[in-house]
């Protein structure tokens, strides 16, 4: 190739980079305006905080998914994993193995993070050492985790039994600090840590390199399998953090916990501007994508325009339109 193409590419890339990062936020802003038009209550503080808080699970999980996908992988098991981690955590709290409310909560949280990390480690190890497509591996573990929850729950639900523990834990979802709901603070914290790891550390650079071109990474001396595996561990830990926020909400894990979360998380990642083929990761875009998903659902319920039978179709259409807007922003010169 010659310098001539270089000149052409130069112009395009400058605009691309800016727009790609900005596009999801533009889409979110458009949705906010749309929501305000549909129902004035939409912009109420309570409603916005509700939506923001609710998006925490998907947002946190999707930050983990950003790592996995940037490295060229995929994790379909996150929804089932959430239910499994939540189930294990609640059963542990019900066991009364640790005395005292706060020591118990701390121990349970630690346990959840360890279990999540181990689940991720299992996904990562099977994928890299077994050299199996991540799609298949995580489809398998998706079924395994889900079945384990149902088994643990004996088909019913796993609920927190001790009322004092429940009362002490409840504020983690419903409480706030200076008016900011705690789950929102958790999103911000996870986003900051995620962005720090992905953008500022050598590991993050290796993630991008592996997702960009595995061969180049290998020839550059990067331990490709280790990097891949660690992205799944990060995903598992993110799932566990989401569970830490999820459990205090309803105090239970049920067989429907986390159903289809994997698809929502992947959608959030893609809306956020991360490429499914790997090599690009956008943490804040991902979080924005999770917000968009939740806002779309909220607008649907708040509006009287759409029959309840058609909500799924309208949601799907809005997501596709949001992506089209993004793409056209990128193409524009």
């Amino acid at each position, binding site marked *: *190739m*010659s*310098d*001539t*193409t*270089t*000149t*052409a*590419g*130069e*112009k395009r*890339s*400058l605009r691309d980079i800016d727009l790609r990062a900005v596009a999801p936020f533009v889409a979110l802003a458009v949705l906010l305006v749309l929501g305000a038009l549909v129902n004035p209550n939409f912009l109420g503080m309570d409603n916005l905080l509700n939506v923001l808080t609710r998006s925490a699970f998907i947002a946190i999980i999707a930050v983990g998914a950003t790592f996995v996908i940037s490295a060229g992988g995929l994790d379909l098991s996150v929804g089932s994993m959430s239910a499994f981690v939540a189930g294990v955590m609640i059963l542990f709290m019900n066991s009364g193995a640790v005395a005292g409310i706060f020591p118990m909560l701390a121990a349970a949280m630690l346990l959840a993070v360890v279990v999540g990390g181990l689940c991720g480690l299992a996904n990562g190890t099977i994928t890299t050492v077994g050299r199996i497509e991540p799609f298949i591996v995580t489809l398998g573990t998706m079924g395994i985790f889900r079945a384990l929850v149902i088994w643990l729950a004996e088909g019913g639900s796993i609920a927190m039994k001790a009322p004092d523990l429940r009362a002490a834990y409840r504020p983690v979802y419903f409480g706030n600090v200076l008016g900011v709901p705690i789950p929102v603070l958790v999103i911000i914290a996870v986003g900051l840590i995620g962005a*720090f790891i992905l953008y*500022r*550390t*050598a590991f993050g*650079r*290796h993630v*991008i*390199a592996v997702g*960009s*071109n595995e*061969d*180049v*990474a*290998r*020839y*550059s*001396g*990067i*331990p490709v399998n280790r990097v891949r595996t660690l992205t799944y561990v990060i995903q598992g830990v993110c799932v566990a953090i989401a569970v830490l926020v999820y459990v205090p909400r309803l105090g239970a894990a049920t067989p429907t916990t986390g159903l289809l979360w994997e698809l929502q998380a992947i959608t959030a990642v893609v809306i956020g501007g991360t490429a499914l083929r790997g*090599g*690009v990761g956008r943490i804040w875009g991902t979080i924005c994508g999770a917000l968009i998903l939740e806002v779309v659902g909220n607008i649907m319920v708040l509006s009287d325009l759409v029959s309840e039978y058609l909500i799924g179709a309208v949601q799907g259409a809005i997501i596709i339109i949001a992506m089209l807007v993004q793409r056209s922003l990128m193409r524009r010169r």
Partner: protein
Amino acid sequence: MATAFANETATPSDRPLLEAVGISRSFGPVEVLSNINLALMPGEVHAIIGENGAGKSTLMKILAGHLPPTRGTLKIDGEPVAFTGPVDAEHRGIVLVHQEILLAPDLTVAQNIYLGREIRKGLTLDDRAMNKGAAQAVHSLGADIEPTTVVGRLSIAKRQLVQIARALLVPQRVVIFDEPTASLTLTETDALLKVIGEIRRRGAAVLYISHRLPEVKEIADRVTVLRDGKLITTRDAEGLEPVDMARLMVGRDVAKLYPDRVAAIAPTLALEVEGMNVPGYAENASFVLKKGEILGFAGLVGAGRTELLEGVVGLRRGSGKVKLNGHPVHFVTPRDSMRAGIVYLSEDRKGKGLLLAQDLRINVTLAALGQFVRGLLIDRKKEAAALDGAITEFDIRTRRKDLLAGQLSGGNQQKLLLAKMMLLNPDIVVIDEPTRGIDIGTKEQIYKFIADLAAGGRSVIVISSEMPELIGICDRIVVMRGGRIVGEVTGDRMTEDEIVVYATGVTSREAASMAGHA
């Protein structure tokens, strides 16, 4: 052979088949081609030479319908035309054989050759006819490739041949070759040149772009020189020597391609490899590398040179004894060998060397990232400084520093790859095909750089299919054939004849006739 070409009946005349009149092309404010006039006559081989960035690629893309010109017109048989795209151009008989491999790796050779123009029998595909046609097309290029082989399993050279075979399947008026021989062996190059002769005989025109000036000298009827987007001259090849061409391209006298060097080889052994086996590729290979030495690896494509060295540095599974500075070592991963001070620069710059979709800074520090981490953080200022250093030291020509690696020209990509690996400050550098697809000016720089490495006390291994380059820069050359080391030449015995004897196993007379064109 003739059956492989689907050509129309040639009607030789003295009217140009394709003519460029006052063609200019700008990207934004930058004019990369200005006022080019070019006429391709029936039955001529017209070479276009120029340094990287001279505008060859752009001109080619305009002629083949990939890009519209900003100003000027194209004429076919004297009639002005405006191509709507490459398919339109192809319908009018303008065929471009790309330098980059554009094949579907999971399809077979025949499926690739007939992709988009499959032969049908009723509703189903006529695989037998396509396999037969593909076999003929490939055979006529002097290659022996099963049409049912999956392309992904072929070497780069063979993929290149498949690509040429694919291009030659449609009727041709003008065939444009973009560095077709960059990755071909002598035999394959010979066969290709014969094919070009055949195309010319049928009255089509051939536009030939190559950095191999002796090859241009041998095949071209006329030569057009581009420099900085301008047409410098179009001359008859008769009487134009490679050295003249080089001077016209560079715009000044090219001193000498290969650097003068006083070999500063120390008696100590930097690397000893004994009984190395890389399953399927190399068998029982033993060699040594001295400190300060430049060791060449010659052989035909597929002789196992790349795989042997990849086995040594831990990129492939292999077994054998390796000693570094006299100490036994065992590299399981490339990381191990890098830490021990050996780097390997892949022949596949785009596929294995650089992250084309990432920017220069990320590429240059990728292998040595550890040096740029302070605490947990990557020190971006230090990275930027490293990039600045690399740009200066390796003369990487880029308009801006935030470009993507894929936007650099081939020569600059090679320099970037060198810069990336040199950040590791290695004692031993293995460079595979250091100048493939690179113009003469950059070649000179890379040779000089390799010589400087050795002069600085490092040891270098160069794997190359270009014998003049090995002879020009190496102290000693090891020759491989069929996965084994079959010979070693040094001093006065470093001649093409001698090497070809080892590389092919044929007698030196046969070899001489084969190597004749180079």
